[in-house]
């Protein structure tokens, strides 16, 4: 059964979206898209500087800003019912809970009474083997000889 919320607007009526708010014109969305593209360029160029803090801000900080812009302007989360935002936040909180619970065991390879021997061995072997990357630390080129992948763990 359909619940058509988009009945054609009456001639001369103020255009509105499904949330009952005045709709933005197309130019508004094109402007947001332009901002997203500028942020994309910054997120690619920033890490090229090779400064850890700049990489974190430009790559991951900007990803959060981009996500916010899409959620707010393309998905219209701001004019949606409040419980939708609460629902999404709850799901993100569950993810954070999972990471918080499992993280200590995954991030550390030693504890008071335990040692993750396999993980430590993998790190050691992986660092020793390298990845076969070129001096530029760059991506592989067509025709380049296959590198020896590090052992699996």
């Amino acid at each position, binding site marked *: 059964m359909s619940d058509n919320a988009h009945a054609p607007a009456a001639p001369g009526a103020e255009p509105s979206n499904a949330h009952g708010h005045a709709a933005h014109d*197309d130019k508004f969305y094109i402007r947001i898209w332009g901002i997203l593209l500028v942020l994309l360029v910054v997120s690619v160029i920033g890490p090229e500087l090779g400064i850890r803090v700049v990489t974190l801000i430009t790559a991951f900080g900007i990803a959060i800003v981009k996500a916010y812009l899409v959620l707010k302007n393309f998905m219209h989360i701001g004019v949606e019912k409040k419980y939708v935002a609460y629902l*999404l936040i709850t799901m993100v909180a569950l993810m954070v809970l999972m990471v918080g619970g499992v993280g200590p065991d995954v991030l550390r390879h030693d504890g008071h009474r335990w040692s993750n021997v396999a993980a430590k061995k993998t790190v050691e072997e992986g*660092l020793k083997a390298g990845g076969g990357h070129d001096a530029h630390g760059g991506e592989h080129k067509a025709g380049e000889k296959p590198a020896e992948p590090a052992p699996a763990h």
Partner: protein
Amino acid sequence: MPTGRLAVWWLIASEIVIFGGVLGSYIMHRLGHPEWANQSVHTNTWAGAFNTFVLLTSSLSAVLAHNAASRGDGKRAAKLLWATIGGGAVFLVVKSFEWTNEIQHGYTITSNTFWSFYYTAAGLHGLHVIAGMIVMMFVAADAAKNKELQRVENAGLYWHFVDLVWIFLFPLLYIAK
């Protein structure tokens, strides 16, 4: 709230847990395994950046389709949905070239855990792109006849979410070298 839109939000909520689990696990392992940096240098940043551009642009066409549907202009909404589907197709073509190149160089899903995560996360996302394209084909066919225009927004919401996931996958898999 229309039932259809509520259902899409529920779907997105469940997807957050699915992708959140994969990305959360990836981040934890990445931090605990510095040797992965030797593998991640082989992902193609430019291909990832181009695909980000493609998905952001397809999100624009999806929201413009929603705008057209809001005005009751089903024909324009359908055209814009087809443009969005085209964006999804370009994304998949770039991905297939990228994966072919990587596999030819010996980086497969079983090479090591970094590549396992890489192919699982990007592959799961790619399946969502395909699902979104199929849904939009049906929605566009109806929209062209000015039927079920409320579905344009629902399909768009899902597509924006697929875009959101890629916004986070891009720095994690392509930029963090």
